[in-house]
């Protein structure tokens, strides 16, 4: 199996982040065509719906449907926002998309903006991504100079302004409404929904927020058609997906492959498990999705439905591979620490619960655990899950629940052994 590159640039391209390189692969054709032909937004949405493109940020909501929710013809300003605040542990796909292929994202945002009637777009880039941000800014300058962004584009009525905004290092700002708060200059805390951003978004105006990869997928779909994209993947999971493979593999990195690829092949693509070791467990979609033992994941294909049926999720496609040397208690401790540190503090279960989860797990790893702690952990996780404004509570609860389900014996052994670290 080889990669199929849609969002990432072809590997043989020199300096793929330049306008020239992007245009040489057919870049901006779709955008120019839309401007000149004034394609009806309905057609674009149809095309996207037929492509089967689903949100690549984690939730997997169909992108075409999402764009169709916008009150397109309502008067007043509307916004398109790109969520490049990629902070989920194990995820690094957006970094490469922005770094290597910024123009495709710009084109994708412009088309999405056109579709929903937004003339202004923001790309909220993770604060730590300095190089991608610089590349994106350079690409913006190029696009403005080439007359692809700005006012009265190609002598039409179409206008589109695009700005980038850097985050300041909070994981929670990857949550769409917290991102909007941060974009508005406030403390990054998720808003309660409803109202959804499509009604009340950035600066109180209707707003659509999409993941970098979803928006980057739009130009090729517009160029080659929804069907082409859908056919790349499997039913209900159209197109390709960039998987960020990390952990105990020989060649960690980003691999863009069609959805529905068997996990085994993805593992081969990443060079297999590091020397002489056995696969123990995989977290297939970033640290917040449930962990899967080797046997379960080996039987799975990498697409939304297959992983869901297997009790996990595709998430943002960040595949964390663990071999048999991994201590699952330590792993969960680290994951819980992340959510403890990154909870925004707004709602009670997450603010108080994440710290409690971490402390109990930390205690267990330090040899001061009790067997009753394990039930306490599960009970706490259940009381966080689904009780919070945003999904961070769920994200903190799922790993605990899944680790307890599949690896409870390791925790018990840790508690009962007196050799605990």
């Amino acid at each position, binding site marked *: 199996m080889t990669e199929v590159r849609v969002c990432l640039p072809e590997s043989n391209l020199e300096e793929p982040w330049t306008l020239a390189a992007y245009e040489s692969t057919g870049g901006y054709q779709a955008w120019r065509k839309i401007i000149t032909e004034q394609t009806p937004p309905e057609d674009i949405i149809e095309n996207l719906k037929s492509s089967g493109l689903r949100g690549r940020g984690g939730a997997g909501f169909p992108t075409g449907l999402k764009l169709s929710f916008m009150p397109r013809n309502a008067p007043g300003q509307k916004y398109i926002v790109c969520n490049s605040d990629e902070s989920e542990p194990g995820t690094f796909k957006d970094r490469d998309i922005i770094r290597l292929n910024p123009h495709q994202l710009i084109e994708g945002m412009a088309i999405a903006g056109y579709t929903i009637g937004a003339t202004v777009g923001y790309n909220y880039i993770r604060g730590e991504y300095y190089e991608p941000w610089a590349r994106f800014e350079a690409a913006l300058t190029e696009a403005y100079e080439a007359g692809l962004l700005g006012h009265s584009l190609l002598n039409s009525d179409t206008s589109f302004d695009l700005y980038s905004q850097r985050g300041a290092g*909070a994981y*929670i700002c990857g949550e769409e409404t917290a991102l909007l708060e941060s974009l508005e200059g406030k*403390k990054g*805390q998720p808003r*309660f929904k*409803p109202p959804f951003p499509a009604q009340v978004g950035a600066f109180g105006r209707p707003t659509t927020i999409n993941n970098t990869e979803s928006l980057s997928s739009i130009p090729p779909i517009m160029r080659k058609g929804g069907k082409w994209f859908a056919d790349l993947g499997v039913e209900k999971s159209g197109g390709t997906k960039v998987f960020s493979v990390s952990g105990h593999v020989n060649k960690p990195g980003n691999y863009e492959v069609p959805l529905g690829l068997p996990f085994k092949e993805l593992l081969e693509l990443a060079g297999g498990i590091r020397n002489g070791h056995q696969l123990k467990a995989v977290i297939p979609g970033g640290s917040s999705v449930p962990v899967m033992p080797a046997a379960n994941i080996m039987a799975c294909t990498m697409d939304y439905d297959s992983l869901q049926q297997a009790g996990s999720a595709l998430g943002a496609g960040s595949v964390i591979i663990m071999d048999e040397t991994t201590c699952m208690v330590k792993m969960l401790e680290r994951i819980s620490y992340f959510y*403890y*540190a*990154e*909870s*925004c*503090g*707004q*709602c*009670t*279960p*997450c*603010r*108080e*619960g*994440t*710290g*409690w989860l971490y*402390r*109990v797990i930390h*205690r267990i790893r330090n040899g001061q655990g009790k067997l009753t702690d394990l039930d*306490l952990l599960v009970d706490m996780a*259940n*009381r966080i899950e*689904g*009780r*919070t*404004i945003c999904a961070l509570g769920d994200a903190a609860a799922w790993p605990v629940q899944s680790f307890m389900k599949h690896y409870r014996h390791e925790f018990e052994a840790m508690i009962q052994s007196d050799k605990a670290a």
Partner: protein
Amino acid sequence: MATIEIDGKSLEVENGTMIIKAADEAGIYIPRFCYHEKLSIAANCRMCMVDIEKAPKPMPACATPVADGMKISTLSERAVEAQKGTMEFLLINHPLDCPICDQGGECPLQDQALGYGKDVSRFTEKKRVVEDKDIGPLIATAMTRCIHCTRCVRFGQEVAGIMEMGGTGRGEHMEITTFLGGSIDSEVSGNMIDLCPVGALTSKPYRYSARSWELQNHDAVSPHDCVGANLHIQTLRNEVKRIVPRDNSAVNECWISDRDRFGYEAVNSPERLTQPMLKSGDHWEVTDWKTAFSKVVQGLQTEINSAGPEGVAALISPLATNEEGYLFQKLLRSMDCDNIDHRLRQVDFLADSQQNLYSGAELPLEKLSTISSVLLVGSNIRKEQPLLGLKLRAASLGGSKIYAINSLDYHFNFKLDGALIVEPSTVPAALAGVALDVSRIVGTDLPEQFSAWAQLGGNRDVYSDIAEVLVADSAESLIILGDSCRQHPHYSVILAISNWIREVCGVKRIDLHEANGVGLTQNGCVPKNSENNALNLVSNPRSAYLLYGLDCVEDSIYGNVLEDSLKKANFVVSFSAFKSESMNHADVVLPITPYTECSGHFTNVEGMTQRSNAAALPRGEARPGWKVLRVLANQLSLSGFDFVDLNDVNSEMENTISEKPFEYPHDIEITLPDKHNGQDSNKLFHRIMDVPIYRVDPLVRRATALQKTADNSIRPIAGLNVEQAREFTLRDGTLMNVVTPEGNGISIQVQADNRVPVNCIYIPAGYIETAPLGVATHLTLEEV
């Protein structure tokens, strides 16, 4: 309308109503912390989880709108499990210090922990500890107790209009704090204490002095401003421990100002007068009531015999109740004396004979928060009438346009659509300028006597803006005349012009009064003959003075003149609740009680008369004023004073009010501007005067916590325009001599003040230190 079912009870509610509101209205209890009816929805405490049929998970009742056919259970296993889960999380980091927490006994967290908590915690880790903040003299903090419901933050942002509280940090380290650790300076900050569902924010003056369950509630009305906020005075063993708001949607909703809340400290102060006292030589002797009364009777009769009834003058504090005012004037008038007034901060009484002294309720105060446009004239409404300030803020958030004509560029808690900051003498001219533009729009000629004023006001764009807005929706427009108007040397002009605007285009007007000014006006505490107004009574010395509830120097803007007249008088009686400097000029001092110990009625600016009940027994020998006046009248052998109780007084008053004895025709005769206007010499500075929020009455001046707030300075500080302060090479706190044209001078700290316009100097009244300046409108400034 949507039909929903909560716990098997079928309800009809408006579409879009939140479940919690529907449940509250139906009397179904849902636990909550962050939800508050008057604040926006935050949905962050997660306590109000309810079970909705077909919903995949429990939903927060405060943020879930009803939908037709919704079936909600607040008691199902899933709902209760969710509520208990939240409670467990809330309690893990909440300290178990209820026994020493002032919120104990009235704490929603404590109450709900009883219903939803466990008796044994599963949390064995260390609890979070948060450093306490010092946020000023009014609010004590214990931030470890905070459950981050953000009610205080939302109150500041939404209701009070200044965001003084906010959250910093993430997750468990989130802290509610003030900006850079500063103090909370809002004039309504005390409401955060009520809003806080735990003991994180508690009252500092009340701290540790009682428990909620042992306090007795007494229904009272605030005397400090003309809103008449409803209060619960809470007492323990006959001592006022604290004051909390009493909900009244027509007046104060559920808020009260800090002045209402913390003013009670004065009634427990050591300055309280508890015995009748007689002056003997240059020291005071404690005496009994009998002796005191006989001394007063003897003194008064001597003076009346020698100087006639005209020789007696009576001045009453606007803080007095209607009954006190009524009896006081009745006492005077029974002696054929018309020399009575309560308007000690008014200079221009020309309008007295020309119009209604109280123009009646032009609109209910409730409506203020939905009014479409407002013109504030000479008013720092936020500090003068804090609760009306809140209503204007609500109006402003709702899109109403608010303009101001002021001498100081006050910082309001709402957005001004236009402000005109002019020297005080130009304020009537500016109003005339607006009137001129109104006349153009309406197509009526501006009466000639206003034209001269209008010319002085010049031509400014803002006039036409204001005029257009006022006329556009005149039934929903309002002109508010504030304290600075009342103190203005051309108050009658301002009244006349605003009256004219009101008549030609139908806008409403509210003439803000001091404290119970409306009630006292209605009950006769103004002279029938305008010649006998307060200024005349003060400046033409009489042989006998009766002072009622006054610290005469601070409570009058011509306190210096009053002081001189008192020195010249033969006989002075002071009815007072407190010992004060002005007592020294009296011959007899009769101890009366402040409003906490005296029942009576107050009438607010809307004309609503509300009863305030005594909360405690009088201290020592002090007695409620109305009883003192009644007995004094008996001692003077005056008839018609055989009242048995307050209701007797009241029923007589009601009959008198209905006769409306103070109805005047309102042909308007107008003084022309004097020659000072418009041609100020360079050496003279216009004096801007106002009475700071915590200097207005004898109670707040003795409320120790209020005196420590940022809104108050212990000694007066003058303010000079920033540019001119530079010319004077002023550093903040430099002492300068300020001298009136008559040569009266004081030395005062002067600082640059960005609210002050050019050629003006701001000098607050309400201080003994600034009293020598009197009502001088122009001052010279000399470096010391």
